[in-house]
């Protein structure tokens, strides 16, 4: 399976929630976090903050300064050789198909989406979770 990179928006309303997303993505198995070109905040500073609250996930910044280089250590990637951007999948079946198609890539990069964590955590679940959501009561 290719590694999975997640492109986060360089903006937030809540710092705690921005960092919670980064930690949750790492816990769910994301292999790379990077920041979108858009957004109103400083991408290098945001990556420094993410570096401080994560331990294993790679971080990408093409022009990282010495401070981020030292904070991220060998987790810093300045190039994305072999990584491919893929669209956010329509459903879990499409996601599994993308991972098979991109098996020889270094990794795939997908934009952050509220539905992404469920895909990362449980990619092999058969259905679309509607049963779990609607039969939540027993």
């Amino acid at each position, binding site marked *: 399976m290719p590694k999975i990179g997640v492109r986060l928006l360089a903006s937030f309303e809540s710092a705690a929630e921005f960092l919670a997303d980064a930690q949750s993505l790492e816990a769910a198995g994301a292999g790379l976090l990077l920041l979108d070109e858009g957004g109103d905040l400083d991408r290098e500073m945001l990556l420094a903050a993410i570096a401080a609250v994560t331990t294993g996930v790679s971080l990408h910044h093409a022009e990282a300064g010495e401070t981020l280089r030292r904070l991220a250590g060998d987790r810093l990637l300045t190039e994305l050789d072999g990584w491919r951007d893929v669209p956010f999948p329509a459903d879990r079946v499409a996601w599994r198909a993308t991972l098979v198609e991109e098996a020889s890539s270094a990794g795939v990069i997908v934009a952050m989406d509220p539905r992404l964590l469920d895909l990362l955590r449980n990619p092999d679940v058969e259905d679309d979770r509607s049963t779990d*959501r609607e039969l939540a009561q027993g």
Partner: protein
Amino acid sequence: MTNQAGRSRGDLYDSVYERREAAGENVHGEADFIMALEPSSVLDAGCGTGRIGRELARRGLRVTGVDIDPEMLETARRKSPEASWIRHDVTLVQLADRFDAVLMAGNVINFVQPDRRSLAIANMATHIIPGGLLIDGHRLNETEVQPADYDKWAAASGLALVSRWSTWQRDPFDASSDFAVSVYRKA
């Protein structure tokens, strides 16, 4: 994010229960079950839209909800601003508060990735006062979390099984049950 009809995923989730309630069904089985256990504070772990936590807050309990999904939590915050809603992962969140009961309802454990399910329970156990309760409700099938596994993870976190039912209405549990409601007590 909204769908074609312009409703968020959170509001769409809630609409299923709103329709059932409008049709005369009691959709607050979880809240009824929890109230009978008489906690004064509840951590609703994996609260989603706060469907249960909001009802518990309405009935006077101190409620904190945790969920990582911003669209679901937006519904919770809008519909019940008096409760506390924290956006985080149940396997990672560290709150200062401790609670009489932690609730993991609505199939939450099935949504946690398999290799972090024991960690989810361990982390939630740290948020329960001594003598407090963990209450779990989730659907059972061959691919989802089995009660014996849950019991093992709970025991490793100092939580002993008190009772198990097949519904929130306390129907008996047996080997053929397709849903488990379990109550654990922390030592």
